[in-house]
């Protein structure tokens, strides 16, 4: 089981690196999907099958599809790739690279400075999660639904635009 974790982790990291450095948007999106799937496997190896399923269904299944739709609407294809290469020069990586490196160093220090590695205590099944959601976290669930409603209304309103004269009503 452990080895699965490390392989999936490596795949996730590699896929993320590739995502961030692609010029073509669609390619980047697809690599991102791979990264998310790898993370789902990581969840499974940690003993959390519920969120592993959620990750695949919602994150990789819904949110990424939303991205693909928008990319399709904006018609970002090969032409964009050319402008993108103009925008992305190697010199631009210096600042963010340094910042990210410092951050990783700090986080590594923080994580490893503790008292050795604790081990996850077995699997937490979906039933337990469901009981938690309907119990102590009920209010949170309601609030999350309000949030989704707000997101829905906002997305509808912001996405609407006045039809121009030449459009057919």
């Amino acid at each position, binding site marked *: 089981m452990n080895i699965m974790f490390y392989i999936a982790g490596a795949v996730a990291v590699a896929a993320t690196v590739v995502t961030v450095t692609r010029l073509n948007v669609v390619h980047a999106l697809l690599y991102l999907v791979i990264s998310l799937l790898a993370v789902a496997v990581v969840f499974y190896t940690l003993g959390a099958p519920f969120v592993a399923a959620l990750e695949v269904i919602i994150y990789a299944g819904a949110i990424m599809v939303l991205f693909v739709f928008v990319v399709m609407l904006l018609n970002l294809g090969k032409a964009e790739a050319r402008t993108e290469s103009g925008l992305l020069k190697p010199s631009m990586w210096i600042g963010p690279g340094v*910042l990210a490196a410092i*951050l990783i160093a*700090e986080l590594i*220090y*923080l994580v490893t400075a503790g008292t050795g590695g604790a081990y996850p205590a077995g699997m937490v099944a979906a039933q337990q999660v469901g009981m938690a959601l309907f119990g102590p976290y009920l209010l949170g669930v309601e609030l999350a639904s309000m949030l989704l409603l707000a997101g829905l209304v906002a997305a509808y309103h912001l996405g609407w635009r006045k039809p121009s004269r030449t459009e057919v009503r």
Partner: protein
Amino acid sequence: MQLLWLVPAIPFAGALVLLVFGAALSRKAVAIVGVGTITASALISLLIAGIYLSAPPAGGAYQQYLWLWIDVGSFRPAFALYLDALSLVMMVVVTFVSALIHLYSAEFMAGDEGYSRFFGYMNLFVASMVTLLLANNLLLLYLGWEGVGLCSYLLIGFWYREPANGRAARKAFIVTRVGDTAFSVGLFLLFRDLGTLNIQDLMQRAQTNWAVGAAAAIAAAALLLGGAVGKSAQLPLQTWLPDAMAGPTPTSALIHAATMVTAGVYLIARTHVLFALAPPVQFAVAAIGAITLLMAGCSALTQNDIKRVLAYSTISQIGYMFLALGVGAWGAAIFHFMTHAFFKALLFLAAGIVIEALHEEHNIFRMGGLYRELPIAFWVFLAGGCALSGLPLISAGYFSKDQIIWSAGASAIGGMGFWAVALVGVLLTSLYTFRLIFVVFFGEPHTPVSRRPGLAMVVPAVVLAVLSVIGGYDRGPFMSFMSKALPGFVAVPGSGVAENVSSAIAAAAFLAGLLGAWFVYLRQPSVAELLVANRAGSALHKFWFADWGMDWLYDHVFVRPVVWITWANRNDILDSIYDGIAALAALSWRGLSLTETGKLRWYAMGIAAGTVIFVAMVMFL
């Protein structure tokens, strides 16, 4: 006696009415209010004098408490009036002479705009002066002191459209301010050391707490002397009085001859205990008086403007009063004050008649031959002039001056030096007075007479002339009256000269001056030219004409450096501190606004960097 408070209150009310409503009143109404208030005040003070003389109050002094002014800790000065022999005499003289001068100016100022303003200021002046005289504590006295200073400024610059008048007014105010500052520092010192400003308490505590010659006494007395010197135009603060002649003649008569300039004399007389405790300062008083009377006498000899001659004469006569105070002849100083008020006011009023008659002509060398045209003016002027120079036996000035001269010689502080100076002063006084009379009233007429004075101008002059002649005969009773309030003169037995000898020599000096003036100005006018023709003579003439160079000195020592400093600071260095702060704020704004690029990635970078730093802080701190 309870009516004492009315004496300053009625003129003050008159001033309020005239200054607030004056423009709406008719000329006649203004004159009635302006002259009437002072006349009422004079009558009340005469009434009070009568009551005081017939039934003197216990302890020789009457106090009237009006209200508490300030109540802070142990400092509780009140508006309270104190009437003893000294303040009674001065109050009567001031109100009486003021009433006459107000009557005179009702006609004199009739042709000027600002009629109500003039009477308003004059009334305010009389109210302040009487407050000064009747105050029972030094703070109230200082209030009156400042009030008269203010009115002096307002009245000197009365014809404000002329910039020179404004300059003269400012000069007067600023120079006396120097003295006033010394006075107020003296007040602080007195209060700090003795804990009260009530004059009677002050004198008692000073005597018990301070030994003769104590440093605190010397300091306080010296500072009060500074104030007196400023107000009374003595050395070194005498430069303002000749220029103050820019004001209307009634103002010069009232303020700068008879009343305000004697405020310093009053102050020293009132606080005589303090001066007695500080012998060096008292000597300084006499020395200042002596030097000033000589300097002013010399300057008066060279002046062309009739009012400036009289101004220098005033400075000189007040020098006599200071000399008297300095040698301990307190009563004599006040006696001379009284006679001086009569004849100097008279001289100014007569000069005003002459000036008006010759249509604003001030230069004496353009007058002449007026004794035929203006006989009344001639006779009153002559009476005043004789009183001024001390015509033996038939003028008031003779008696008062003689007293001072003899006292100067016979006192412990004085000595023969002061006596000789006082006699030289008599010679000079006689010289310049008769020079003035001969040049103005005799000789060839250079300017025709265009106006004759009316009754309102003549009557006050005649009244004062009579007083100038007979005012000296009551010297005996006067001196004994004054001894109720002031210590008598202590003569050193065997020193000085006998009174008769002193009087005889003074009479001789008078005659010498009279003859000298007659000779130079009537008999042989060419002699005057000769005296000035040679280099030494003309240099001396110029030097004395410019008041011994004092104006030039002050201009170079004080005025020019200050003007240079203000020129050097014309960009206001201190302001640049605040400009600098503002510039710094603007600079930092410009710097910070560079961080607002409007670019999303820049802000994201900011957030990320901040996060990294915070995590680092959490890790290491």
